[in-house]
């Protein structure tokens, strides 16, 4: 395949339609954005509160996902425990499930009348719904599987020679994990974390169901956009533009690692 043939038309045409379909709406958003009034629309208390809340909660959710999700990915990739396959299915289910279903499930687990939430309320007087904590939980629930799946793939694909050598030299399993395993899959970890953060930032369904909607504490950008599009489309469009720009920045910053090293090559170097 050294000689380059022109791509067949049967592939080029649908590919062009697909690309156009993906790009055109974004162009429309940019064209229709209220540019002349952007400064005022984006500095309203509501807009600033929503953006701040979104950035904070998405970052918190990503940190939690890294702390808990990395060990989970390792267990799924290397674990010899019975039921690993079942666990893998269960922990990636949120990936394919409508987020609003996750919100309903969270409500029945951690709501004031929930399976666990009931005792949190009864024993400690803690109620989770309608707090920023609920937002972080909803986002973690929906976004953590992205990190787990990305990292697990890399761990499975990674060469275990280094680990075996370290073990022969007498390193403890924990030391091997931090000194050998994790550095080897760093690109996948970064890619997974970025993917997780982006997904958390965009979370809507689980959040509005489990955490409700209140300015400053639970009304994240996607919810603010949805509500604004009903009453005040101009500011809704302005907020949507901000989200588009944030996504673009994330994509550009991680272009190399994410596209090439991370996903396509399974994190191997």
């Amino acid at each position, binding site marked *: 395949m050294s000689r380059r043939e022109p791509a067949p038309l049967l592939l080029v045409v649908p590919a062009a339609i697909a690309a156009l379909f993906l790009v055109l709406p974004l162009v429309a958003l940019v064209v229709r954005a209220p540019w002349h009034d952007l400064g005022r629309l984006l500095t309203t208390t509501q807009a600033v509160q929503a953006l701040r809340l979104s950035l904070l909660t998405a970052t918190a959710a990503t940190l939690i996902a890294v702390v808990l999700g990395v060990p989970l990915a390792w267990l799924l990739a290397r674990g010899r425990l019975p039921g690993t396959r079942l666990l893998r299915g269960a922990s990636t289910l949120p990936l394919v499930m409508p987020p609003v279903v996750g919100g309903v499930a969270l409500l029945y687990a951690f*709501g*004031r*009348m929930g399976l666990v939430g009931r005792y949190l309320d009864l024993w400690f007087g803690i109620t989770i*719904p*309608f707090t920023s904590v609920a937002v972080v939980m909803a986002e973690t629930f929906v976004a953590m599987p992205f990190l787990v799946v990305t990292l697990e793939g890399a761990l499975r694909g990674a060469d275990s020679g280094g680990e075996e050598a370290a073990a022969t030299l007498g390193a403890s399993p924990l030391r091997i994990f931090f000194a050998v395993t994790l550095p080897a899959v760093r690109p996948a970890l970064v890619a997974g974390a970025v993917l997780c953060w982006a997904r958390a930032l965009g979370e809507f369904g689980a959040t509005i169901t489990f*955490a*409700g*909607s*209140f300015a400053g504490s639970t009304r994240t950008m996607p919810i603010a956009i949805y509500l604004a599009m*009903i009453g005040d489309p101009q500011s809704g469009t302005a907020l949507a533009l901000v989200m588009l720009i944030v996504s673009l920045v994330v994509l550009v910053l991680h272009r190399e690692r994410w596209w090439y090293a991370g996903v396509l090559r399974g994190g191997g170097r």
Partner: protein
Amino acid sequence: MRKYVPALMAALLLPLLAGCGGNGDKTLTVFAAASLQGPFTQLAKQFESEHKGVEVELSFGASNDLAAQIQQGAPADVIATASTKTMDQIAADVTDRSDFASNTMEVAVPAGNPAHIRSLADLTRKGVKLAVCQAAVPCGVVAAQVFANAKLTVHPVTQEVDVKSVLTKVSLGEVDAGIVYVSDVKTAGPKVTGIIIPAAVNAVTTYPVAVVSKTAEKSLAADFVTLVKAAAGRRALAAGGFAPPSRS
């Protein structure tokens, strides 16, 4: 496991097929405020039985969301909103507009009233979790008016997208109280108890109904509006806890 997959797929797809094979030759699409769910569902059934071959498609939601959809060209034939203000916003897109019902507010608490709410003033107590509608939808506007009338400042934990979402949060026991319409409490069943708001501070909202100008089923749409305003409509609305339109 694998051999069950085709059966599972079939089970999932069956409802789709059933949905396609509807028996109506014509469809009338009615957009209505979330609070109208009870009476309008009943009226739609009656309309279908009186108009053979016509299927009434109902879409309930926040009034201003529905109004925004109409402005964007949503294919509705009739629209009924929970405030005259939301209908004013789409005055250019509708015809044959008239008021057909009114509603006032009530405090809804979960069965057993865990926070011992007895009056509006109790809602200002620290630790009481209150749900209201977001400020832009009619139920949020009217609730704000009630608190202004009573000179009370409340700190809700959530502002929901429409009144039925508020009611759900109450019936699940996730909040201690919610401000909803009198009609919502009446039809909510045993999971929700209502606490009456004194008439002196309560506020009223009037429900208008109209035919969407772009409708292709102008006479059917007009018939539906007539049904809503006729004795049958008044009965269904009264049974659902609605009051006749106020003459102000």
